[in-house]
């Protein structure tokens, strides 16, 4: 049940281009699994790129780490490189490592394996083909890991100090942000690729969860489990946790060596801003004291298992702020939530907590609708820079029935269509064609005018078949 693709790291929308090899490599019309198998069988195949349009691949003898090789964006291709060549950590004792580190842990340059000077040795690249250049290798399966002969005639050889994958990237909190390259479970089973549905079918398709980095078959934590996990390639074991070193453990060890850490800093959720009176994004950083649901139902304490049994025990989720019965978001839900004290209602959101505004407000204000605004603000409320009006002059989507009251100069916020929500601009963000600007209306300026309903005509919307109730026996 193991896929040949497991040996490869995918880079979406990229291809490799060798600057000195002008000729286009031959494309093999084949399924991606067959391409992977063919490349794995060839000693000098280190990567392949797969053309989704033509369903063919090109087997390549280089990777992105080779000289004169460039990564180039091409939406038609996905690039698959052998993990051994691009991983910057060590699996096991590093026997399969094919990386390009060429310095020892003390910073000494490695001796080329083909050279016998300054140190004579038996490891000839002729017999050990993996001994390329002067890269760190482990040809004698040294349990201490990768090493090399040094160019210092007084030091024959030294270890390279490249970290094991399970130590290279450590776990903070529950490892939801873990992006390391451990691809085996704690019992040693190989992980199933997230982009495959065999041997186990699963809902965690990478394209559906772009923010979870479900790359290749690496251990991840997309569902706020206790720690990263993966589906296994063993059809009898669906999924298992992975053994990855916790940052706190590294801190303890380094603490003993005199390196000090800010413990509180490390306990904080990475990339999440803490708030208490409102919540941002999904509210994972909300640490306020709201303790009822939107409809006022009291929340269950996180350290209690009644009326609802749950997995979010405070001691297992130290960074999630699961204190008392406060609304929290330990699982990446839409907003802060809690288990309720009603047996019939397991959980509910706390939408009564307001979202923090993410508007950027500049000083100054506008009168009326701002159609006479001629100020110099040129950013939207979210801080995106405005596009120059000139660039849009030929394709203004608006029907401007009168000449502009204020010239559309530069990229300043204006209101040429008398938009009732104030000055706006086209933005530099391709996902936001237009947005309102970082200016507020002047105090007491908003007036709502009443419209009559007499002349309204609706035609194609708002109709439904209201079946009259039928008599039944």
């Amino acid at each position, binding site marked *: 049940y193991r896929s040949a693709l497991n040996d490869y790291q995918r880079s979406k929308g990229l291809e490799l281009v060798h600057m000195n090899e002008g000729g286009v490599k031959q494309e093999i019309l084949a399924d991606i699994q067959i391409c992977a198998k063919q490349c794995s069988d060839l000693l000098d195949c280190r990567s392949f790129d797969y053309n989704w349009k033509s369903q063919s691949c090109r087997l390549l003898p280089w990777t992105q780490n080779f000289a004169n090789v460039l990564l180039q964006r091409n939406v038609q291709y996905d690039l698959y490189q052998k993990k051994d060549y691009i991983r910057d950590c060590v699996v096991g004792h590093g026997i399969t490592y094919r990386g390009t580190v060429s310095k020892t842990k003390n910073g000494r340059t490695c001796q080329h394996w083909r050279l016998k000077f300054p140190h004579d040795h038996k490891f000839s690249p002729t017999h050990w083909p993996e001994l390329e250049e002067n890269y760190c290798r482990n040809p004698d399966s040294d349990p201490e890991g990768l090493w090399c002969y040094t160019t210092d005639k007084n030091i024959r050889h030294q270890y390279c100090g490249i970290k094991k994958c399970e130590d290279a990237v450590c776990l903070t909190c529950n490892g939801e942000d873990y992006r390391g390259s451990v691809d085996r479970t704690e019992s040693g089973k190989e992980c199933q690729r997230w982009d495959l549905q065999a041997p186990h079918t699963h809902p965690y398709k990478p394209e559906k969860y772009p923010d979870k980095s479900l790359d290749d078959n690496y251990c991840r934590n997309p569902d706020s489990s206790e720690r990263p996990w993966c589906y296994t390639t063993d059809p009898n074991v669906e999924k298992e946790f992975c053994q990855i070193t916790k940052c706190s453990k590294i801190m303890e060890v380094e603490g003993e060596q005199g390196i000090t850490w800010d413990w509180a800093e490390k306990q904080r959720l990475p990339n999440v801003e803490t708030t208490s009176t409102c919540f941002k994004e999904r509210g994972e950083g909300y640490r306020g004291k709201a303790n009822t649901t939107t*409809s006022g139902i009291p929340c269950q304490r996180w350290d209690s298992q009644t009326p609802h049994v749950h997995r979010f025990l405070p001691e297992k989720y130290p960074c999630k702020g699961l204190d008392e019965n406060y609304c929290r978001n330990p699982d990446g*839900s839409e*907003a802060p939530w809690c288990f309720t004290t009603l047996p019939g209602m397991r959980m509910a959101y706390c939408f009564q907590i307001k979202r923090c505004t993410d508007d950027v407000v500049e000083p100054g204000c506008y009168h009326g609708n701002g159609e006479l605004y001629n100020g110099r603000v040129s950013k939207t409320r979210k801080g995106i820079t405005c596009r120059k009006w000139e660039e849009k002059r030929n394709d203004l989507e608006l029907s401007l029935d009168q000449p502009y009251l204020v010239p559309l100069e530069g990229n300043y916020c204006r209101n040429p269509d008398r938009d009732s929500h104030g000055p706006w601009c086209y933005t530099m963000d391709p996902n936001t064609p237009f947005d309102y600007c970082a200016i507020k209306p002047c105090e007491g300026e908003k007036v709502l005018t009443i419209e009559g309903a007499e002349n309204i005509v609706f035609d194609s919307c708002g109709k439904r078949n209201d079946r009259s109730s039928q008599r039944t026996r």
Partner: protein
Amino acid sequence: IVGGMPGNSPWTVSLRNRQGEHFCGGSLVKENWVISTRQCFSSCDADLSGYQAVMGTLFKNPSPDDPDRQSVPISKIVCGPSDSSLVMLKLERPVTLNSRVALICLPPERYIVPEATKCEIAGWGDTGGTGHDNVLKIAIFHIISNDECNKNYRSQRNKVLDNEMCTKPVPVDVGACEGDYGGPLACLTHDCWVLEGVIVPARGCGKKNQPAIFTRVSVYVDWINKVMKM
């Protein structure tokens, strides 16, 4: 919906997260545009891949082979003017209109719904133990003016604003609840159902003798049209 009854609201949309769980409501205003509330979404440029708009069925958890059910991925979110609490969701492809999936009209710009107009809310949210948990429910309300709402039911520092609207309190517990937010307050005008309000989160669910507050859509119709046009 607390109280109310099972009903038919072909423009009411169920918004589903990546796990396929219903989390908020919405209203279909164009074949590929849904209006909902900002409170339901993590950010104004959230990546909503995996999120879907589901409509065409009365059931909260329809079977996957339900022939009437239409599920369309949400491709984009656009936040409304700062004071609006509205969002527009663009669908990856247009839905097919039929007897179970219909568009709701937008009101004229800045139109004020006359007092006593009959309106209804709809949603698959919490029922507060009032029954019919797994089907779309509706509840009927009548509009009151903001002046009356403020005079009789709101404190001095808690007045409804011009961009909000009120419905008349009723002496029993009935109203929107968790899971209904973002859904429609649809009013019957000239024989057409018009999206006059959007359900926004409020303290409590359907509390008796208290008015329900909604975001007034007519204030934002120009923005809605501009977004669809651009």
